[in-house]
């Protein structure tokens, strides 16, 4: 807890110098995601939480954790950063690393089965339907796509955040 507290104090102390109210945002989202390689499919629908920290009026870093069901259940962790437009309409373009932990459909190559393990991915995303009003951030139909691997093969990863709601602390 101590590093988080320190980070919060640093952020709060610099608020007076910034034109916007707070650097921290937390929220909830509902989404679907899939990672598809030649030997492992991981995906599903569900919900999660997210937190972001503003580095300035336009740049932010963020972390997201989601719990998805479909092919078994798995946890999807994403960390990344992005650029957002200033103003009420705040479209966000982002780059993220993704880690999928848990259930997946494994399809081996002939006579060989992949070892249990996570999926790892890198994605670019766009949240064009995104607005901020009075510290409340609402976004719909965020899309992201990129590459995925389970360390044997490389494939495709994609996700759609159907709805996201965040609030500045």
């Amino acid at each position: 807890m101590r590093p988080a507290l320190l980070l919060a104090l640093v952020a709060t102390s610099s608020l007076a110098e910034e034109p916007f109210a707070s650097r921290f945002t937390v929220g909830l989202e509902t989404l679907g995601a899939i990672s598809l390689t030649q030997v492992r499919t991981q995906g599903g629908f569900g919900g999660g939480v997210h937190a972001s920290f503003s580095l300035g009026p336009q740049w932010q870093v963020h972390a997201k954790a989601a719990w998805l069901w479909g092919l078994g259940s798995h946890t999807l962790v994403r960390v990344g950063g992005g650029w957002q437009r200033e103003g009420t309409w705040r479209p966000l373009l982002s780059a993220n690393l993704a880690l999928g932990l848990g259930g997946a459909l494994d399809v081996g190559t002939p006579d060989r089965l992949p070892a249990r393990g996570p999926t790892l991915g890198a994605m670019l995303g766009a949240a064009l339907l995104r607005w901020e009003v009075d510290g409340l951030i609402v976004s719909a139909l965020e899309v992201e796509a990129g590459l995925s691997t389970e360390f044997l093969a490389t494939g495709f990863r994609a996700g759609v955040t159907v709805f996201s709601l965040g609030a500045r602390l």
Partner: protein
Amino acid sequence: MLLLVPACAPGQVDGPTTDKARALAMDVDGDRVFSDVVALAGLHAKDTRVDCASLNSRADTWCNLTNDAARRFLEERFRSLGLSPVADEVMDHPATRNVVVDLRGTSKPDEVVLVGAHFDAFFMGADDNSSGVAVMLELARLLATRPLARTVRFVGFDHEEIGLVGSTRHARGRPAPKVSLVFDCVGYADSTPGSQASPVGFPSSPAGDFLAVVANDVSRSRAEEVLQVAAGHGAPPLVPIISPGLGAGPLSGNLMRSDHAPFWLAGESAVFFTDTANFRNKNYHTRLDTPDTLNRPFLTGVAKAAAMAVVAWGDAP
């Protein structure tokens, strides 16, 4: 200091058992397996149809479902091997009569390895599922005079096509086997590029020349054991497919379409052998599912893989 190390970890079969499994597989008689398919398909063609009106359907497929003659054939073949099949009958609609026979284990008779295949079929049902029944009968022939450490229970499941009815009733009514091996559609193969289709979300395969070894997280180590003992020893290419969890997720439903599913849903260990049915065989559930469309070397290889798997599970320490 006492080291509590298992003799053989899950997913690994010891050397002597592996050797025994491969030796038994050498005795698989492919001609006998295929002749059983021909006999069963012929019986389905002539058998009295199940009353499709009682199934609330008069569609052509449902009005060409048969089971009686194949059941009698199965019982007679078991008896000819010196075994004593028992009819496990449930009269609730739809009435089912599974055929069950135990080959008692020599040193661990209370531990059971179940081998099952459904004997009801649409039309002639050569691939679906005379092929699976024939492979089960070949295993019974091989093991009848060479019992394993554990009891091997052969089960002919009734009315799989109606909705896994016989296997569901069997799974609910008895103690859990140590592991189950289920065959459904194991005789069709095509090495032509493009001959294999895949469900949405599954990796695509170029040709339908492999045997799918389907397991879930519970039975994953059993699939690993199948690969260990059988791959490259007379079996067709083995492609393991592992469904997450119990396998009951909404996106993995295509892996639950046969008699292993009731065992999965009960949290038990079960492995499913299949040629992927309608994802490969265009004759699936049609009048064209006839013996001449099957691939005999592939069917023989499936019987060998099955023999090796059952010995690995039935005889390992």
